[in-house]
């Protein structure tokens, strides 16, 4: 495709993205905001799985840490939102490094179980340390992100905050996939012994990726807190981790856009199905199963295969 056509396609896509929230109802824009948040958190799970072969069920912990830090620093301490966000990322990455170092020596299902164990530990601690987290009652009144007096307080405004961040991160994901580091990661995933022989420090690379994944989860959590303005333990349980894993695999873990597609599926579809009444949960599960069977490489994979098939003609 020529550069001009490229630019036109991208321009149109951008215009569509920018116009969408004005055309859609407020409720749909709200769902799109959540899709954006889940894209960021899900991206962390996706590249960890796709590039490193690591199944992580611990993302809900970092999501929660990001949210609670935002809540604590802004509500208890009255500091501006960037402080809370930064603190959350620092705390999450430190914990990821500290805990990741020993457990990333495991592999396969052991590692998956270890991340599950982390998820459960996080869930319990969020509940137990209710002096900081507010326990089941939660923390309310989290202030909006408001740089220079412009408050991101409606779904429309937040859409234009969260999606640029998500798209930027997806672009960086693209860079990662095509970089030397990306090659090293895939070498490590597919053939650890060969990678080791070639001088790749597998363990260190794994920890770095885990830390990066945690940072993304934390960022998503902080944004979540400032959007909903209320956080409680119910949002950071194991089923949240399962949702992130779900959207990562559904979207296609080997593709750049996968997380966004998966996130859209799990936020928009349930809403659309709720008009069916009490049976909507079952129909969603059935749709999920159908999506997995029909598109084993996820939405992103299916689109990429279709694109390649077209290009081959």
């Amino acid at each position, binding site marked *: 495709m020529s550069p001009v056509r490229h630019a036109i396609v991208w321009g149109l896509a951008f215009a569509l993205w920018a116009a969408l929230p004005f055309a859609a109802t*407020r409720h749909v824009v709200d769902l799109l905001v959540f899709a954006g948040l889940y894209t960021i958190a899900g991206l962390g799970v996706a590249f960890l799985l796709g590039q490193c072969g690591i199944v992580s069920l611990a993302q809900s912990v970092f999501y929660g840490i990001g949210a609670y830090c935002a809540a604590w620093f802004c509500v208890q301490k009255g500091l501006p939102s960037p402080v809370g966000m930064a603190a959350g990322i620092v705390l999450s990455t430190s914990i990821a490094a500290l805990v990741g170092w020993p457990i990333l020596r495991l592999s396969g299902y052991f590692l998956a179980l270890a991340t599950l164990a982390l998820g459960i530990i996080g869930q319990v601690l969020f509940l137990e340390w209710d002096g900081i987290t507010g326990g089941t*009652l939660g923390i309310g009144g989290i202030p909006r992100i408001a740089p220079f007096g412009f408050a991101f307080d409606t779904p429309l405004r937040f859409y234009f905050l969260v999606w640029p961040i998500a798209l930027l991160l997806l672009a960086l994901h693209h860079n990662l996939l095509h970089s030397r580091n990306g090659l090293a990661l895939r070498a490590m995933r597919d053939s650890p012994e060969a990678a080791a022989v070639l001088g790749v420090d597998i363990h260190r690379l794994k920890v770095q990726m885990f830390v990066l994944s945690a940072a993304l989860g934390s960022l998503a959590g902080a944004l979540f807190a400032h959007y909903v303005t*209320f956080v409680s333990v119910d949002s950071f349980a194991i089923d949240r981790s399962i949702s992130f894993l779900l959207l990562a695999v559904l979207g296609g873990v080997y593709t750049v856009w996968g997380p966004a597609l998966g996130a859209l599926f799990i936020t928009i579809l349930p809403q659309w199905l709720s008009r069916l009444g009490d049976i909507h949960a079952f129909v969603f599960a059935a749709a999920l199963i159908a999506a997995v069977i029909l598109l084993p490489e996820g939405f992103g994979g299916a689109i990429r295969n279709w694109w390649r098939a077209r290009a081959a003609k």
Partner: protein
Amino acid sequence: MTRIFVRVLFGLLLLASCQAFVAAQQPTSAPIKIGAVLSLTGPGAGLGGPERNGILLAEKRINERGGVRGRPLQILIEDDGSKPDIAKSKAEALIHGEKVVALLGPSLTASTGAVATVTNSLQMPELCMTGLGPAIESTYKSLFHMLPPQALNARAMLEYIAKGLKAKKLGVLHDSGYGQLVLTNIQNLNKEYGVEIVAAEKFEVGATDVSTQAAKVRAAEPDVVGVIATSPVPFRNARQVRIGQPIVSAVGSSSYEYVKGMGEFADDITFAEFIVAEDPLPHQKEFVDYFHKERGTLPKTYDAAGWDATHVLAQALEKAGPDAGGEAIAAAIRANRYRGVVAQYNFAAADMTGIELDSYTYSKLVKGQYTRLPFKAGK
């Protein structure tokens, strides 16, 4: 001649007024939309389901009687899946999408926290099915609670423990969700009643067997054992490790399905709750009979809470007018010292329910049947 004329005129007048009367009874104009966000799936489904029953029944009854100012109520119910984020999304959809005039629910404290931030910023009246949550709620002007704060539930339990059973030592077996909330409040109040908490053992919601925790409670040799959970498992395990002491529990643990699950162990358990349908108080009888007639089963607290909430809202809409705007409707709710099935409400009170200790009805399970105790809390 004049007499016939007067009689005909009178007859016509009578006919016309009958017509108007009948027309007023049949609500024919545009329905008044009310939103409801309830937990119909997930762990909160045990609360949301009954609340929906009560709300739908109340809607039916109110519409049978002519609706509000001649207009029928239309209650749109959404499920928040027991998740606060979804509750907020659904609330926003109802408010901005369906343009409801008021909101009922949610069923869980965390969901209430999330939804209240929305309704408060819009001055929309919200009647939630939970007790007072985090402190920030007391600044909200249009939020009202249908159930008492956990502090009052704790107090009601302690009243019976200290004054009814004359106990000095309390052991508590509780779950990490609902149970923890109530326990925290018991821990704030027990000294006031001269009751010492000799054991407090926790288990996760949905645990298979809590005999170890129950045994720990038993080993502390309490006079009374408090079991607070949303499952029959701890009640069974407590009796199975041979805890012979009387068991006292809170309103959230009292439901017919839990009693069924307790099997033969549903005995000598006292609840500080609000309605004993087998032996209702006079002002509860109408609701109990209507519920039983329509559904074939007996109602419990959460069914009644849904019923009360809908009626409170209907009365406020009747008084202020459905198009009066959020603030006026909220003011009408606040001014109404409503005598509900659940309790005597006073929405102007600081805790936004105004329920007092004397609204509590104590029930005791005797061989699987609820009986009403004569014990009354408070002065």
